[in-house]
């Protein structure tokens, strides 16, 4: 499929009449749906309310600084990812990109890392939905406020609902989640602004600056955890084949999602820090910061509304993350990297039914099982998040590292993107190592070991399969390709008649038969 990388134009690629990803509805989605995919995968309102708290528990006094560094890193990763999205319309996202840059083996590592990232963030979102729904239930039915059972029931119900939505392939769900996100983000933004206006400017600055005694290791760990709040912003890249103007819509969706959600997180964390400092409390000890702050500052009506918004946001996040998860599995099944049955689609709905049947019970039952084994749901969520962060950051490191190789391969390397990619990859790799080392000294070490073990297991089995089936290397990294109707002379006509014999511009005319390979 690829032309050998020779200095001169060795031969022109044959342009086919069908793209390799032809089953999909090519060039059909408008920009709003592309943004909706990224935005609902990030679930900014759920992340903005939980993440400052999680970062505060690991980074102590440098919460805002860690979030700021994470924002810069996320935008840098977005810029690196966009080096690919501007040139390749892919369905496999980062995994496809790394195959194109660093080859099949690195692609396998990325694929496994992404599966861990998407899979564990789905568990996190389901558990988070259970956690916040439990708080909401406790408001109205105080008898159910204690005990783990209500939250677990919600987790199971939400897992089943996600399964159903994905199996039926409800396209409209993306738009619904967009509305839910916009509403809860707007509500949150109002609260954040009110809180910041209420506080003295000096207090806000003091809260944003790191406290004395916090070291670079705290910031690094905080940054790694904070990065998980951004993860998913690249998921618009899975819609490359289906977006109407992929080379314009996808890069914009990726960059704007990273930037906008980062600014929201920064605002939310500073306002929460200011709010807790004003109450004389420590954010790291909070249970549900947005609620407690709303209650403490006399706007307790906002609490239930926020709970509904956050629960919905977690649900949206679970849908979007598991969509990405089964899509990657489905692609791997089609390429035969994973067992071929993962590539089986539902007979009626055309959705990846087999991949769903394998993954959804796992991601739903793991958090339930952990709690039944005696852990507290909130601690379980923190452990799950460590695995997810490890997976995502590994994938991000690899995609950034793939940029220089990819650009050199297609002969479009310039120093600026290469420098940015190398710098970002180095920083991310450092932050990943520091996070794993530091976390292995806390109760979250279970997450570190789970991450390393699962990564090793997945990569080993992937590489073994790659060696056993040598033809596989050439098949990985399938992406949407230009087809004859995209080219000048193929005649995409307004009256809808079939195109005439394809002609190559410049050439006196290869016949239709030879062009339609």
């Amino acid at each position, binding site marked *: *499929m*690829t*032309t050998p990388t020779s200095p001169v*134009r060795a031969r*022109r*690629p*044959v*342009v*086919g009449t069908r793209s390799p990803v032809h089953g999909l509805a090519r060039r059909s989605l*408008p*920009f*709003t749906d592309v943004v909706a995919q990224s935005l609902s995968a990030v679930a900014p309102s759920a992340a903005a309310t939980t993440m400052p708290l999680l970062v505060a528990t690991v980074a102590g006094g440098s919460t805002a600084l860690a979030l700021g560094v994470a924002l810069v890193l996320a935008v840098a990763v977005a810029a690196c990812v966009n080096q690919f999205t*501007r*040139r*390749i319309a892919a369905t496999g996202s980062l995994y496809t990109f790394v195959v*194109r840059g660093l080859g099949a083996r690195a692609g396998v590592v990325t694929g496994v890392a992404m599966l861990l990232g998407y899979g564990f963030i789905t568990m996190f979102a389901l558990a988070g939905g259970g956690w916040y729904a439990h708080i909401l239930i406790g408001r109205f039915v105080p008898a159910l406020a204690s005990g783990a059972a209500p939250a677990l029931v919600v987790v199971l119900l939400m897992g089943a609902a996600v399964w159903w939505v994905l199996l039926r392939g409800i396209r409209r769900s993306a738009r619904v989640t967009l509305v839910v996100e916009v509403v809860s983000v707007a509500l949150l933004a109002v609260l954040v602004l009110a809180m910041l206006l209420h506080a003295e400017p000096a207090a806000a600055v003091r809260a944003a600056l790191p406290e004395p005694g916090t070291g670079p290791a705290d910031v690094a760990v905080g940054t790694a955890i904070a990065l998980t709040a951004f993860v998913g912003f690249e998921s618009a890249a899975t819609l490359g084949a289906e977006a*109407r*103007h992929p*080379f*314009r*819509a996808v890069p914009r969706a990726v960059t704007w999602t990273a930037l906008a959600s980062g600014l929201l997180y920064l605002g939310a964390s500073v306002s929460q820090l200011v709010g807790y400092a004003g109450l004389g409390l420590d954010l790291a000890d909070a249970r549900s910061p947005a609620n407690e702050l709303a209650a403490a500052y006399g706007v307790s009506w906002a609490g239930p509304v926020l709970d509904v918004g956050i629960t919905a946001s977690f649900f949206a996040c679970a849908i979007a993350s598991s969509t990405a998860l089964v899509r990657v599995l489905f692609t791997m099944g089609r390429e035969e990297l994973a067992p071929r049955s993962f590539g089986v689609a539902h007979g009626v709905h055309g959705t990846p039914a087999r991949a769903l049947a394998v993954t959804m019970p796992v991601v739903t039952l793991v958090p339930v099982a952990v709690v039944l084994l005696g852990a507290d749901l909130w601690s379980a969520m923190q452990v799950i998040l460590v695995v997810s962060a490890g997976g995502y950051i590994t994938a991000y490191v690899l995609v950034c590292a793939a940029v220089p190789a990819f650009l050199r*391969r*297609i*002969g*479009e390397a*310039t120093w*600026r993107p290469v420098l940015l990619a190398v710098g970002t990859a180095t920083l991310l790799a450092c932050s990943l190592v520091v996070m794993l080392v530091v976390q292995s000294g806390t109760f979250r070490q279970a997450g570190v070991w789970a991450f390393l073990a699962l990564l090793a297991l997945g990569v080993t089995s992937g590489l073994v399969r790659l060696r056993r089936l040598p033809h596989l290397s050439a098949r990985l990294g399938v992406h949407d*390709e*230009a087809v004859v*109707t*995209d*080219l*000048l*002379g*193929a*005649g*995409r006509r*307004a*009256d809808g008649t079939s195109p005439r014999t394809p002609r*190559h*511009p*410049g*050439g006196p005319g290869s016949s239709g038969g030879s062009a339609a390979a």
Partner: protein
Amino acid sequence: MSRPIFASPEAAAQLLGLVAGGAGDSADDAAAVGEDELRGRQPRAVRHALQVLECVAASGAGVTGQEISAALGLSRATTYRLVQVLTEDEYLVRLPDLRGFALGHRVAALFPPPAPRPPLAARLVLDRLRAGLRGGIHLVRLDGVVHTVVDEDPDFPLIPEPGVREVVDGVCGELAAGAPSAVRVADRWTAIGVTVLDELGQAVAGLVVVALQDRMPGVAEIDARLTPAAVELGPLLA
């Protein structure tokens, strides 16, 4: 050989996408409305972008970004940026090897492909028609992006005189809009046309007789000759 016939400047503008209301793909193009005028280096960027298109057209499909930059003497960063912008808007297409570029289908709107010469069978029908009827008889394709004269009467060519363009444009516009036949008069000139239909009843072409008003044969005679010729041409042109 072939001449484009624009019914009006608005039609031309709409064809090139300069006026809203043409193709309906514009949810995200709406943001582009209301930008300020060209300033600074923008004219140069426009010129460079067009040069890139010319370069791809001249080199043929498969030319790489590096080759374009070398051919035009532009810096590589600038070239890649321009190629990027043109690819986003589908004026250029990246080929499956990810290195090479080809002109995209949107360029077709800037340069409508010349209508093919009618086949010999159709030309023979026209020859017979011209032998029996005094006046310039022209075949105009109506199914392309632009109406084009594909077979001009060699004995009575379409001269650039006031009135000629007006009657031809008028008749073709009416035929393309679905009328089976049309008559127009302007200055000293008259044009009479009938449509050539495909099997679905869509107009593919028009047979147009153009003559000075006082030399035009009677309508009945023209109808009797044009209509059977148009029926005969249908399967040859559709």
